[in-house]
């Protein structure tokens, strides 16, 4: 359960942390997130020295390696601005696991101060920017998969839904067992491929059963997993990061 969080007033500036998956594979999702924030009158800073939050190594037990990489990120976001992350998983890492990672090590207080500035993108849009969306798109049926870390670690499942519900022409479809993990789990998908395949296939079935035209998620790990499987099946369901989807539907010059 996420703790009750207090949100600051709209800041003048905000940092954006890409995450390595978005950086390499889904840059349009990161850009869309940055544009959404900028459209609300907040200057977005993208430190060019950022790399990865360190989660892959941390979850594989390679703690020293994870810490070395995490320390580099701490050095990129030194000013007292919010740090917005387009992923529940990486945001959860930086918000909840960094303090654990550096427990009884470096300057605990400064790590905690850093972590308390970390926001998952949808919670930042909803609670800090209090964004209001005007849907310019055509009617569409959308299924939402909220990542386990967005749901359980960051507690932002409602924020994902709230944003989609602001879009008047979007019909939000609810798949069976929507809270269940899609089977990605980082290296899990490679270390336990058979179980992972079973899980993603069940997830894809549940999504297909809703009749949705499109799958959206706030996490690229899940998108890569479920979307990759839907494509493998040649299913007629597209997949998009929630930031890209919202930007595309609310951006005036977009078709």
């Amino acid at each position, binding site marked *: 359960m996420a703790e009750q969080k207090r949100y600051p007033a709209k800041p003048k500036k905000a940092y954006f942390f890409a995450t390595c998956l978005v950086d390499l594979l889904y840059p349009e999702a990161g850009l869309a997130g940055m544009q959404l924030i900028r459209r609300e009158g907040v200057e977005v800073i*993208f430190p060019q020295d950022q790399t990865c939050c360190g989660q892959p190594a941390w979850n594989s*037990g*390679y703690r020293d390696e994870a810490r070395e990489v995490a320390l580099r990120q701490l050095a990129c976001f030194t000013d007292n601005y919010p740090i917005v992350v387009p992923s529940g998983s990486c945001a959860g890492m930086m918000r909840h696991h960094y303090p654990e990672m550096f427990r009884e090590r470096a300057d605990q207080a400064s790590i905690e101060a850093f972590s308390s500035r970390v926001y998952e993108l949808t919670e930042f849009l909803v609670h800090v920017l209090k964004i209001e969306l005007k849907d310019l798109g055509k009617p569409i049926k959308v299924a939402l998969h909220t990542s386990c870390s967005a749901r*359980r670690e960051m507690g932002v499942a409602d924020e994902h839904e709230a944003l989609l519900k602001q879009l008047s022409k979007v019909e939000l479809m609810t798949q069976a067992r929507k809270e269940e993990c899609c089977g990605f789990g980082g290296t899990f998908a490679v270390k336990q491929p058979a179980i992972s395949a079973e899980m993603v296939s069940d997830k894809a079935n549940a999504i297909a059963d809703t009749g949705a035209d499109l799958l959206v998620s706030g996490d690229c790990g899940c998108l890569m997993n479920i979307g990759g499987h839907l494509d493998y099946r040649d299913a007629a369901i597209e997949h998009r990061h929630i930031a890209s989807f919202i930007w595309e539907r609310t951006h005036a010059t977009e078709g």
Partner: protein
Amino acid sequence: MQQRVDFHSRIEQALGNPQLKASLRSAMDGLMANRKACFPDADALEALRLRGAQIRANALSKLPQLLLQLEQRCTQNGIRVHWAESVDEANGIVLGIMREHQAELLIKGKSMVSEEMDLNRFLEAQGIECLESDLGEYILQLAGEPPSHIVAPAIHKTRQDIARLFKEKFPDIPYSDDVDTLTRNARGILRKKFYAASAGLSGVNFAVAESGTLCLVENEGNGRMCTTVPPVHIAVTGIEKVVEKLAHVPPLLKLLTRSATGQHITTYFNMISGPRRTGEKDGPKEVHLVLLDNGRSRIYEDNELVNTLRCIRCGACMNHCPIYTRIGGHAYGTTIPGPIGSILEPQKAGLDNLGELPVASTLCGACAEVCPVRIPIPTLLNRLRYERIRSDHDGATHGQGSGRTRKEAAIWKAWSWLHRSPVRYRLALTLATRLRKILPLGLGPWTRVRKPPRIAAKNLHRRAREEGFNDR
């Protein structure tokens, strides 16, 4: 290595069994829905879970002293207390009691600690018959299988499986796959055995230190029969099951039954405080309590891993686990399966034996979300992954470093080298982007059921610069 091979082949076997898949899915869906219906108020549930966690953490923080108090109070109540450091010792104690009474038949209520001891096999090798009286356990004893779930041990079997098994074992009884008929038949067979048995065995759900009371939660009444009908009652339990006060039992009981089966209360709740007293008409003449360590005090030593011992064995973590639901309990190859088993069992048997279990998780957190005593299971899985590959040894956890391979360690070293330098990282990004048409992405297992992701023509670092987003 053998364990790894076995684990993987058991997983493949489970995944290749569509009937198992269907049974598990519907059973787990039912158990999850039942639990949910029992906890309509989220705030009240959180408050109760917090209370449960505090009670268990409190008991563990004073464990040595509470165990001594438990021994003293039990002894005052006329319960004979035995300490067993190992499974062998515990089995020896039970055997000694049986021999003392020339007992030839032990009738058993459900006890996961007796499974941990592999007691049935041990006693049977000594010529003593063991009979499971919990219906699920009885079915499995007939089938010659271990339990696949700690609360619903035969959950992997369908009604028809059980009907066929009964027909095979009891050809004289007409075939029926009607649940009530099957239950009635089993009851008929078992009932006579309760009178014949010279000793009954049970587990313990909570052992209360201040009063020397053994609490036993059950639904079938067989637990009460096992602990009252035969002249000798032997209770076996792990040393972590102690709680400080009687007042601590109601919140834990509330959490246990609701989390396990979605019941507000079980059909039976037994509070055993000693053998039959003068003037009483029933109850055993002797009550024994066997307290088993078997690696628990080693787990106790670690400030973080000690939280493993908070567990009250409700099984909610398995019911909500997407992996347990796919592979079932047998695939784990341990006494306790599922998420709690994946943290508990490797600590007991060593990461060299069961180190694969903590790795076989997506860390989705469904287990921790429902755990009635708030065990941070994903955090502990992560910790054990670290223990498994760490290169320094402080000797705290069995099998430390046993999963470290030179290849994997080198990969993570290289990963860190790349990601801790912005220059190297950006260079690699650019290179990957340039070579995106020829780079193989997500080879092997990933692409078996997925299209590989595509590297974008421009990475976000570059697009951020181009779109005028400042660096600082």
